[in-house]
């Protein structure tokens, strides 16, 4: 078995593939956030809770209404999107004239409310959701056994991301959205119903989060805190990608998943060790860097990247300075 810095190629490929799965989640979730921020200048802190809601709606549908996975993929986002529209109409609308800060605080509060309600009803341990029959089992790829369901997750996410990107960047509807980002008043003057567009955009962003939730349900336990830890990572992804950039969040999301995979495999830490451990002064200087890229640090990777990117290119990798 050939090894690079203590990791077999097999092992690395395995981690990369797992990283790709995580990256797909990051991509869909950050896509929703980016769209909402791009058009509405609102930082939707409730995104994680809405993702969780999507998973729970699927579980509730299955347990009490006999709705199967495939229908849940459609109905759960619709349901969550409807809730999103109500939120926008009822509350967010009043904050547009104010500092972005208030939108963030409002959605932060909403996230607490949603999470608290679900925790009250369902406890923290969560419920299990079965993998749909069509997608059980896996394929032996030689270097690892790849569950079919996880392959489906990657495919579904990428397709949805691509479709969304295409609509926004290449269609007339998308051009209205982009125009609305730059100059809503002018767009309104052209006769486009901008408030309606904004409402539907928020709804769509929420629906994307819920879709990711349904995808996640069979893999992760459906529990009320599943969105809570994911949300700040997703924020970081959006910021790094460029706050309003659709392509930026997709690329960064997947990229982060892959980078996390490499970090988790231990290759970077081992590589740094191999290069510097025997060099007298450098090895202690490199130690904190090594620590930051050790497998346990995979949770911090995105924040390190974010800090660096923000200092060097504040608008993000693909963003435009507003």
């Amino acid at each position, binding site marked *: 078995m050939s090894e690079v810095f203590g990791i077999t190629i097999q092992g690395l490929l395995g981690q990369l593939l797992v990283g790709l799965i995580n990256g797909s989640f990051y991509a869909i979730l950050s896509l929703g956030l980016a769209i909402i921020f791009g058009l509405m200048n609102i*930082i939707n802190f409730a995104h994680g809770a809405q993702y969780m809601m999507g998973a729970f709606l699927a579980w509730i549908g299955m347990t009490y209404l006999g709705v199967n996975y495939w229908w849940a993929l459609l109905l759960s986002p619709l349901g969550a999107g409807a809730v999103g529209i109500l939120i926008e109409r009822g*509350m967010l609308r*009043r*904050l547009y004239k*104010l500092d*972005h*800060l*208030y939108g*963030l*605080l*409002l959605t*932060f*509060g*909403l*996230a*607490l*409310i*949603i*999470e*608290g*309600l679900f*925790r*009250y009803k369902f406890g923290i341990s969560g419920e299990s959701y079965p993998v749909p029959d069509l997608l059980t089992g896996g394929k032996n790829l030689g270097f690892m056994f790849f569950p079919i369901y996880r392959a489906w997750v990657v495919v579904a996410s990428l397709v949805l991301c691509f479709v969304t990107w295409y609509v926004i960047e290449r269609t007339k509807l998308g051009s209205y959205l982009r125009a609305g980002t730059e100059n809503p008043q002018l767009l309104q003057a052209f006769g486009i119903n901008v408030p309606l567009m904004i409402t539907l955009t928020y709804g769509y962003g929420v629906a994307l989060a819920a879709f990711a939730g349904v995808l996640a349900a069979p893999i992760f336990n459906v529990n009320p805190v599943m969105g809570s830890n994911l949300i*700040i990572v997703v*924020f*970081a992804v959006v*910021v790094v990608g460029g*706050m309003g950039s659709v392509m930026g969040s997709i690329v960064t999301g997947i990229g982060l998943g892959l980078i996390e995979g490499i970090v988790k495999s231990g290759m970077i830490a081992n590589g740094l060790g191999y290069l510097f451990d025997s060099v007298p002064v450098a090895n202690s200087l490199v130690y904190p860097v090594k*620590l*930051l890229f050790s497998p*346990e*640090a995979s*949770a*911090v990777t995105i*924040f*390190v990247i*974010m*800090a660096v990117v*923000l*200092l060097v290119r*504040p608008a993000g990798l693909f963003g435009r300075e507003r």
Partner: protein
Amino acid sequence: MLLKRGNAIAWGVLVAAGMGAPFLVYPVFAMKILCFALFACAFNLLIGYTGLLSFGHAAFLGSAGYITGYTVKDLGFPPELGILAGAATAAALGYVIGSLAIRRSGIYFAMITLALAQMIYFVALQMPFTGGEDGLQGVPRGMLFASVDLRDPLAMYYLVFAIFLFGFWVVYRTINSPFGQVLKAIRENEPRAISLGYDVDKYKLAAFVISAALSGLAGATKSLVFQLASLTDAHWHMSGEVVLMTLLGGMGTVFGPIIGAALVVSLQNYGADIGEWVTVITGAIFVVCVLLFRRGIVGELTALLQKVTSNAEAPRP
């Protein structure tokens, strides 16, 4: 005139309540409120008076708590030196984080503070001396100035109150000084302040470091009160909580954060039996404040008072 009188009354109430509190409520509970009130006041210096929203203030609360805990427990420092060590660490951390974050503004500033705070959280999780998930337990309270046994709840309480008064006074003096005026100018209209010749970045950094140091002071004191330092204090949820306390009490008001902290801590304490509803209520408070009471309790009260008195004083032309 009214404002000056109102201020004096508020100071009086604060001191009286503080002196009498340990006899009316569980002293540890009162100490918790004081520590968080100091934390919120420190945070308010940044958001309310300089207009900078930091999402990573938990880093200062948490790191100071760990350093104080470690120096007192493992290095045998007396409590006063331990607290100083904690606050100084937070100040130094504030200088580093502040210097990096100040370069950007608005939401990007907030995001950089969040990113750096997450790195601090990670360090707290991994460093052996912090005990990771278990936390740094069994921090002795020690003898203050080698003569006061801090295991006595009353003695500990009055020390905490003294520290709180000191920190609050620092914030108060900062706000009401020429330095504070420049901060307010930066909050209101930064380009204008720059055009008037002020080195805005230096002012912002100074405010950030003061805020970090006082947050650290709160965290350091807290670890002696509870005799334990844990990851909860460095977690980003804590950063969100201090925002809530300040928002609820009134951003940019002097006494608001104290009220906000008292209310939030009380809610968590007495709400422990209702369990998850505490989270829901906390969220609901956020939502209601943002939609209807943006000036916070103290802000709204002050505005109401002003309206009432101005209606009484000046006849409409």
